[in-house]
């Protein structure tokens, strides 16, 4: 069957986006990017507005109880399925959706996969909210390596120019901008293009979905402080200070932890809420909101005057009567767009495809509160896949849910037992409960110690070797979590299975996971459960971000090498220098830097951590300062101290 392509148009008839429906099944239309297949981001659209069903090559639509209603041609839709014929406009809020009989996608799938085990599911929320994408903008103007500035000016869409432009607007962008400000760059020489008001919104969403609510503690140490580039005072000292000031003498335990960790005490980690609050404060201090422009980056090009031009789209509600297409010119650009998308393991993906609309199988990074609610009410069996930090959080949450309903059983599925931890040099990683344990996602010496030096100095092949030795799925050793597993085993509601998943299917309203057990017999086994929660992760594939894919296709910058396989796989990021510059994009005085998971498997191991983002920002800011980039001063001890005092006082940098 040929896939059908639906076009989303605005009131002026301009095509904003295209969605390709390739598989039979149901597709939700709505404003909630994380939960629908066809996200339409505008206030006129309800969270869950309508649904489209592709069946036997024909399309059907229904309204899902939307506030503003849905119209098919002139007919307001009710709760039934209506056949949607080609050429008839479907009106959802301010958008008009159409498809033509010939509107079949000619191109290959939008996202390629570079291995067969896993394949991407283009999903909104974790992927890009698509309505701003794949439109004709910026079109032919960008169909070349270097764009003349005169033509950009002539387009009438130039929104502004700046010295420093941060693309993404997440924590990686924030930390970079924070460095620039503290190195002396004034607020009005910096622009941020992003889709969230606060830099931590995306991260918060990931945390909440993966069972780290605000009151819970995250997985980084006291001095990984994206709100404070010195790392002092760390979160532990601040927490101690607050509690002791409030009369609680036990507050000293946080500081004592830092003193004894990781051997004499469990590693100190800050509460998520404290991290958010600290970022709020620093956002205010450096003027983050004043520097922020809402927009989704579409493409980046070099200009003929040694700068760069970013094509982006602003949200509909800010565009007024004009269109949403804009350009911004900048001398220095930093890319920190975070995880491009969630990738599902192959078997999960086929299940999702065959059982569209089924909420029985979820990725732990998606919203899945409903599962815990249903379990609390009715009980049931859950398969938890994976052994990383998120798996341990989910197990903890299931344990909590069990306090309300004892009829909950947990089958923990892992690929195989872990007999011995990874080994490197003279050391070996600890193992417990068939999980490799380490406080953070890389050995600590990767952050600033001998391993950092080793990796940076290594050639690409050697880097892969080192990263493979140090990487892998691990979790932090936490007594509460281990007590839960022990209790679960003893009380019989928690069981571990080892094996490779062959297939998953829905049978009598249960999810059946077929596994082939490890070992000489290779017996197959069916795990029957009500729900499957996949905790095997977010895998970073830069090519599934249309923005980065375009950049890669245009300038072909070198990529790092991929490592690992299966759930441990770490895909290749864009190669950066030790200063985090994408060298292939150098344009005279103009430079492009990157940070975060986009640079995976490069000169620094922990790029996707707060401290890694701080490190990348420090290296690139120093690099710019050495090149006497505009507004930047050199950061010596005196300047550092003065700036630190300002931070302490909450004064502008």
């Amino acid at each position, binding site marked *: 069957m040929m896939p059908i392509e639906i076009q989303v148009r605005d009131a002026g008839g301009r095509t904003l986006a295209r969605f390709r429906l390739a598989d039979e099944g149901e597709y939700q239309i709505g404003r909630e990017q994380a939960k629908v297949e066809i996200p339409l981001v505008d206030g006129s659209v309800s969270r869950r507005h309508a649904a489209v069903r592709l069946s036997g090559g024909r399309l059907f639509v229904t309204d899902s109880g939307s506030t503003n209603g849905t119209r098919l041609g002139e007919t307001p839709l009710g709760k039934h399925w209506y056949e949607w014929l080609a050429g008839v406009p479907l009106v959802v809020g301010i958008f008009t959706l159409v498809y033509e009989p010939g509107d079949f996608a000619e191109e290959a799938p939008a996202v390629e996969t570079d291995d067969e085990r896993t394949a991407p599911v283009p999903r909104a929320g974790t992927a890009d909210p698509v309505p701003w994408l794949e439109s004709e903008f910026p079109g032919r103007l960008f169909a070349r390596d270097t764009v003349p500035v005169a033509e950009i000016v002539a387009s009438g869409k130039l929104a502004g120019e700046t010295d420093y432009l941060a693309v993404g607007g997440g924590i990686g962008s924030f930390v970079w901008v924070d460095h620039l400000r503290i190195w002396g760059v004034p607020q009005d020489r910096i622009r941020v293009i992003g889709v969230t008001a606060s830099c931590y919104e995306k991260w918060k969403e990931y945390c909440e979905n993966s069972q780290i609510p605000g009151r819970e503690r995250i997985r980084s140490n006291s*001095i990984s402080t994206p709100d404070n*580039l*010195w*790392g*002092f*005072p760390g979160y532990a000292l601040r927490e101690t200070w607050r509690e002791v000031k409030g009369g609680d003498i036990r507050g000293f335990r946080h500081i004592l932890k*830092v*003193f*004894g*960790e*990781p*051997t*004499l*005490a469990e590693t100190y980690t800050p509460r998520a809420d404290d991290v958010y609050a600290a970022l709020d404060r620093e956002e205010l201090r450096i003027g983050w909101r004043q520097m922020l422009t809402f927009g989704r980056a579409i493409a980046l090009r070099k200009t003929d005057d040694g700068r760069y031009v970013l094509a982006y789209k602003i949200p509909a509600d800010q565009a007024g009567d004009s269109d949403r297409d804009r350009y911004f010119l900048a001398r220095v650009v930093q890319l920190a767009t975070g995880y491009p998308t969630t990738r599902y393991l192959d078997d999960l993906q086929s299940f999702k495809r065959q059982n569209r609309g089924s909420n029985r199988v979820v990725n732990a990074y998606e919203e899945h509160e409903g599962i815990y609610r249903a379990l609390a009410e009715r009980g049931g069996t859950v398969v938890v896949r994976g052994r990383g930090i998120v798996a341990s959080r989910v197990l903890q949450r299931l344990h909590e849910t069990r306090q309300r309903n004892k009829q909950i059983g947990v089958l923990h599925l892992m690929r195989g037992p872990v007999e011995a*931890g990874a080994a*490197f*040099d*003279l*050391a*070996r*990683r*600890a193992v417990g409960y068939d999980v490799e344990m*380490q*406080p953070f996602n890389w*050995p*600590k*010496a990767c*952050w*600033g*110690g*001998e*391993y*950092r*030096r080793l990796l940076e100095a290594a050639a690409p092949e050697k880097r892969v070797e080192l990263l493979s030795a140090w990487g892998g799925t691990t979790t932090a050793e936490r007594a509460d979590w281990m007590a839960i597993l022990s209790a679960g085993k003893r009380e019989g509601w928690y069981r571990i299975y080892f094996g490779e998943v062959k297939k998953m299917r829905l049978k009598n309203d249960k999810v059946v996971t077929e596994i082939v057990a490890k070992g000489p017999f290779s017996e197959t086994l069916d795990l029957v459960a009500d729900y499957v929660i996949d905790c095997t992760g977010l895998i970073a594939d830069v090519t599934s971000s249309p923005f980065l894919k375009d950049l890669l296709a245009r300038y072909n910058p070198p990529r790092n090498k991929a490592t690992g396989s299966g759930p441990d796989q770490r895909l290749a990021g864009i190669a950066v*220098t*030790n*200063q985090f510059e994408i060298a292939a994009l150098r344009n005279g005085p103009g430079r492009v830097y990157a940070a975060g998971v986009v640079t995976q498997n490069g000169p620094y191991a922990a790029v996707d951590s707060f401290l890694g983002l701080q*490190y990348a920002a*420090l*290296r690139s800011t*120093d*690099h710019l300062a*050495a*090149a006497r980039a505009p507004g930047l001063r050199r*950061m010596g*001890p*005196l300047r*550092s*101290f003065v700036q*630190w005092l300002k931070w302490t006082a909450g004064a502008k940098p």
Partner: protein
Amino acid sequence: MTPTLFGRLQTRLALYLLIGLPVTLAIAFRASGWSWPPAAEPCWFIATLFALGLVLEPVYFQMQRFRWDQDWPFAFFAFFSVMEFLAVYAAMRLDWLPYLPACLQSRLDPARQVPVCQVPSLTLAEAAAHFGLVFVPMLIALLAGLQIFMVRWRYRGGQFGRFPVID
């Protein structure tokens, strides 16, 4: 953060120069009644402590290679520092440090008619106070002070200076 071997040595040297030296000079001058020359014992004590540290750093570093994170708690650092102090103090009391100026003032042992060193006059309490005045500020500098002035220090494994900038 986890230091490198070179970073450990550099940091130790810097802390002794920045904190150990001034504190020791103050103590030595106080002991000599604020007159020249300052008392020698505190100076020899701190110098020996520093020298022992330089020798032990590579040993500690080798020990940490057996640990996955190549790191150990600050509490261990504190413990080993106290051990270093006790070792140096014991060596002084046992008169194992032949270069101590106390030896210069050796006296003749009346019974055996051989020169023997005088036991240094530094008492344990004095030495402990001296050690504490050096060690506590050093620990604070390690945990807090240095990074306020030196933003790159913690990422460079305790080395000072900038990252090499290559264009």
